[in-house]
C-alpha cells in the first residue's frame, strides 16, 4: 500500500532537511529561500506501507504568482496527495500557521509539523502540543531535522491519518465573509475544493477565477480587496491567539544574532567583508587541498611512467586514460575544498545576506538578489543555474539569468586555472584566483546589461525574501552539500572526460604513429593557430581550447597529453593571464549549450550565447595580451 505525502511550508523551514531524514536521501539542503525549484521525491517503508514523499517549493500562500508557487499549488490542487504535511518553523510559526489554514481549506488529510524544536528549546521556550492540536483540530508533531526527534512519530501519524481519514474542521471567517462564501461556494463545480476556490475567488486569485468562470462578482474591486484583508486578518488573529495560548517563552522568540548582522550586513564594511570571506575561501581551497593534490599527481605520474608507451595499447592506457583523466582527477581535492567553503557560507545563513547586500546592484542589472543566488549555483556548474532559473517568477529575469550564467566561473574551469596559475605565476595563485572570480562577476554583470539592452527590454521584478537566522553549520549537511556538488565532477571524469581523452589520444597518435607533431591534432591546431596568433597561443593551446569546448576540464587533459606532462611547461605570465580570461569566457560547454537550448526552447538564444561569449573572450584576451605586454615592457 502506497501513501503519497506532500511536504508544504514556507521557504527555509526545514522541509528538505526533514525529507532527507524521512527517506534517507542525500538530497541537497540549502539555507536560502527557494532552492527547491522542482519537486523532489523519495520513498521509505514503514509498517508495511510505502510512504512516498514529495518535497515541494517553499511558499507563503497558495495564491500562486511565481512558477514555484504554481508547482506547489498545482500539485496540491490537481494531484492531491493522500496526506499533506505542513511544515512550520516553530521559531517563527505565524506565517506557517497562515499557510496551514489555507491548506486546510483544500479538504485533504493534513498534519502540522512544528520543526526546529531543538532551537526553540535552546531559546528557553516551550510549546504545548495538546493546545495546538485542540485548536487546530488536526494532529501536530514536534520535530527536529537536526536531532531526528519526532521523525518516527511523524511517519506513524501519517499512516494513522491515512487510515482514519478524519477531515479537518472548517475554519470560520467573519460573518460578512461567510455570507459571500455561502453565495459563491455552490457555483463552484463539485469536483473542486469548493470552499478553497470560493476563498481564492474572493482573494482575487486570477487562476482560480478563470478556472471556475463567472460567479457574479461585483464590479467594485474595493469590496474584494477589503474582504481579502479581513480573511488574512482572521487567519493572523487566529495564529497569534493560538501562539499566545500554546507558547510559553522567556523573552523574544527570534534569536537572529543582531550583533552578527551589525557587521555582516553593514552599510560600508558589509561588501568588503564579503570579498574578504571569498578571498579566505580561495586560500583555504589551496591550503587544505595542496598536500592531497601533490600526492594524487605523483601517483598518476608514477603509474603513467611505470606503464611506459612502448606500443599502441600501452600508450592508450598511459597517455589516454591515466594521463588524461588523472590530470583532471588531481584537482578533485581542491574542488571539494571550495565547495566545503561555499557550503559553510550557505548553511550558516550568510548567503541570503549577501543577496540582501547586492540587491541594489542587481537591480541596476535588471535582476534581483534572488537571481544572484541562482547565479551563485553556477560556481558549481552552469547547468544548475540554467535549470534553477525556473524558480524566477519573471520571464525576462529568467532569460537574462540563463544567458549570463555561462560567465559564472564553474568548477570545471577550476582545474584549468589551477594548471595555468601553477605554470605561469605560481607565486600569486590566490591573487590570480581572486582576480578571475572578480572578472567572472564583472562579465556576468556586463552581459546582463547587454542582454537587457539588445534582446530583452524590461524592469526588475519585486524581491520579497526571507532572511533566515544564523545557524551553526551542521557538519553532516556541509558534507552532503560538498559531496552532491562534487560528485557531479567525478561522474564527468568517468564519462565525458574519459571519452574526450580517448578521442584526443586517437587524434594525437595517428597518423604519426605516436609522434604528436605529425598527428591530426597538430594539423588542426596549426590550421587554426593564425586565428590565435594575436593572442600568442601555441598550437597546443589552441588544440586544448578546441577540445575544452566539450567540457572545460578537457583543456587540462589535452595539455598533459600534448606536452606529455604538466611539469616542464613554460608559459609567459601575460599569455597565462590572457588564457585564463579566455577560458573563463569562451563558449559555454556542450552541456550548458544544450540546457540553454532546452530551457529557452529556441536555438536562437543558444547560438547567441556561443557567439557572444566567444567574441567577448577574444577581445578581452587580446586586451590583456597587449596591455599586459605593454606594462611588462615598461617595468
Amino acid at each position, binding site marked *: 500500500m502506497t501513501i503519497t505525502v506532500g511536504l508544504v511550508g514556507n521557504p527555509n523551514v526545514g522541509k528538505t532537511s526533514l525529507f532527507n531524514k524521512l527517506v534517507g536521501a542525500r538530497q541537497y539542503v540549502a539555507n536560502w529561500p527557494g532552492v527547491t525549484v522542482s519537486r523532489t521525491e523519495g520513498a521509505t517503508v514503514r509498517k508495511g506501507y510505502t510512504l512516498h514523499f514529495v518535497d515541494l517549493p517553499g511558499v*507563503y*500562500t497558495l*495564491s500562486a*504568482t511565481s512558477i514555484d508557487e504554481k508547482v506547489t499549488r498545482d500539485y496540491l490542487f490537481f494531484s492531491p496527495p493522500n496526506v499533506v504535511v505542513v511544515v512550520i518553523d516553530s*521559531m*517563527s*510559526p*505565524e*506565517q506557517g500557521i*497562515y*499557510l496551514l489554514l489555507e491548506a486546510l481549506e483544500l479538504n485533504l488529510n493534513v498534519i502540522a509539523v512544528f520543526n526546529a524544536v531543538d532551537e526553540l528549546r535552546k531559546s528557553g521556550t516551550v510549546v504545548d502540543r495538546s493546545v495546538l492540536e485542540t485548536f487546530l483540530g488536526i494532529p501536530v508533531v514536534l520535530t527536529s531535522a537536526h536531532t531526528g526527534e519526532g521523525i518516527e512519530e511523524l511517519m506513524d501519524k501519517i499512516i494513522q491519518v491515512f487510515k482514519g481519514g478524519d477531515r479537518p474542521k472548517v475554519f470560520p471567517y467573519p460573518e460578512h465573509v461567510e455570507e459571500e462564501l455561502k453565495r459563491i461556494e455552490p457555483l463552484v463545480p463539485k469536483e473542486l475544493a469548493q470552499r478553497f476556490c470560493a476563498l481564492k475567488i474572493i*482573494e*482575487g*486569485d486570477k487562476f482560480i477565477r478563470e478556472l471556475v468562470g463567472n460567479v457574479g462578482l461585483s464590479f467594485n*474591486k474595493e469590496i474584494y*480587496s477589503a474582504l*481579502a*484583508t479581513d480573511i*488574512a*486578518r482572521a487567519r*493572523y488573529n487566529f495564529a*497569534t491567539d493560538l501562539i499566545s495560548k500554546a507558547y510559553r517563552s522567556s523573552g*523574544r*522568540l*527570534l534569536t*537572529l544574532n543582531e550583533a552578527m*548582522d551589525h557587521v555582516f*550586513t553593514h*552599510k*560600508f564594511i*558589509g*561588501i568588503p567583508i564579503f570579498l574578504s570571506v571569498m578571498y579566505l575561501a580561495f586560500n583555504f581551497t589551496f591550503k587544505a587541498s595542496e598536500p592531497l593534490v601533490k600526492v594524487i599527481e605523483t601517483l598518476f605520474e608514477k603509474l603513467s611512467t611505470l606503464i611506459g608507451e612502448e606500443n599502441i595499447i600501452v600508450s592508450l592506457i598511459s597517455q589516454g586514460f591515466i594521463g588524461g583523466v588523472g590530470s583532471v582527477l588531481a584537482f578533485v581535492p581542491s574542488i571539494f575544498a571550495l565547495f566545503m567553503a561555499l557550503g559553510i557560507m550557505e548553511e550558516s545563513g550568510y548567503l*541570503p545576506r549577501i*543577496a*540582501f*547586500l*547586492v*540587491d*541594489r546592484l542587481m*537591480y541596476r542589472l535588471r535582476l534581483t*538578489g534572488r537571481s544572484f543566488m541562482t547565479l551563485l549555483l553556477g560556481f558549481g556548474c552552469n547547468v544548475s543555474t540554467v535549470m534553477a532559473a525556473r524558480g524566477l517568477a519573471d520571464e525576462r529575469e529568467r532569460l537574462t539569468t540563463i544567458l549570463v550564467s555561462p560567465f559564472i566561473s564553474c568548477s570545471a574551469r577550476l582545474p584549468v586555472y589551477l594548471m595555468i596559475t601553477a605554470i605561469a605565476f605560481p607565486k600569486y595563485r590566490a591573487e590570480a584566483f581572486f582576480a578571475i572570480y572578480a572578472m567572472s562577476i564583472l562579465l556576468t554583470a556586463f552581459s546582463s546589461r547587454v542582454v537587457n539592452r539588445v534582446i530583452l527590454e524590461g524592469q526588475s521584478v*519585486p*524581491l*520579497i*525574501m*526571507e*532572511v*533566515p*537566522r544564523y545557524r551553526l553549520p551542521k557538519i553532516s549537511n556541509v558534507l552532503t552539500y560538498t559531496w552532491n556538488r562534487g560528485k557531479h565532477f567525478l561522474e564527468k571524469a568517468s564519462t565525458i572526460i574519459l571519452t574526450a581523452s580517448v578521442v584526443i589520444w586517437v587524434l594525437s597518435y595517428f597518423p604519426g604513429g605516436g609522434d604528436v607533431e605529425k598527428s591530426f591534432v597538430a594539423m588542426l591546431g596549426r590550421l587554426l593557430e593564425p586565428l590565435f596568433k594575436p593572442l600568442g597561443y601555441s598550437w597546443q593551446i589552441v588544440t586544448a581550447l578546441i577540445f575544452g569546448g566539450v567540457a572545460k576540464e578537457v583543456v587540462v587533459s589535452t595539455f598533459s597529453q600534448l606536452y606529455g606532462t604538466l611539469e616542464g611547461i613554460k608559459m609567459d605570465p601575460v599569455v597565462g593571464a590572457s588564457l585564463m580570461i579566455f577560458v573563463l569566457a569562451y563558449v559555454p560547454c556542450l552541456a550548458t549549450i544544450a540546457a540553454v537550448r532546452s530551457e529557452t526552447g529556441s536555438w536562437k538564444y543558444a547560438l547567441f550565447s556561443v557567439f557572444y561569449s566567444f567574441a567577448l573572450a577574444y577581445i578581452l584576451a587580446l586586451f590583456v595580451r597587449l596591455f599586459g605586454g605593454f606594462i611588462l615592457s615598461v617595468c
Partner: protein
Amino acid sequence: METLKLSDVPENVTVEVTGLEESEITPRLRAIGILPGVRLEVLKAAPLGDPRMYRVFNKVISLRNSEASLVRVKISDDSPLPLLNVPPGDYVVVRIDGGWMLRNRLAMVGIVEESTITLLPDGRVKTTAGEFDLGLGRMAKVFVRKVK
C-alpha cells in the same frame, strides 16, 4: 494620526500597518503578515538604502523600497524615534545605533542609554553635562522615547 509610506520610515522605528495599495504582490505581502493592524519593525538598510530588512512577527523579511512604498503605516506610540525627528521636549535615550566610537563620543557629553535628555527649541541638546550641539548625523543615531 498621519500615515506615511513604509519606505519613508527611518530605521529602528516600530510602525503599525494601516493599509496596502492593491498590486500584483499584495497576496504575498498579506500572507507574509504585512496587513492592517500588524506591527512591523524597520531593521536595517542595505548599502545605498535599498532594500531594507523588516521584522514581521518573528521573521525577518527583505523588501525593496518600491514594494515597501505600497504599504501605508503609522508610527507606533511606543516606538523609539531618532532624536532628529522629534519635537523639543524631555526624552529618555533607549538606543544608540552605532559602534563604540560614537558611543564614546556621546558618553562624553552625557548621552548614554537610559539617560534623560532635553531637546531644546533651538535644536541643541541639554544633558547632565551641559548643553551641546550634536549635529544632524549623530542626532539620527540616538533613539529616544518621550518622558511620560
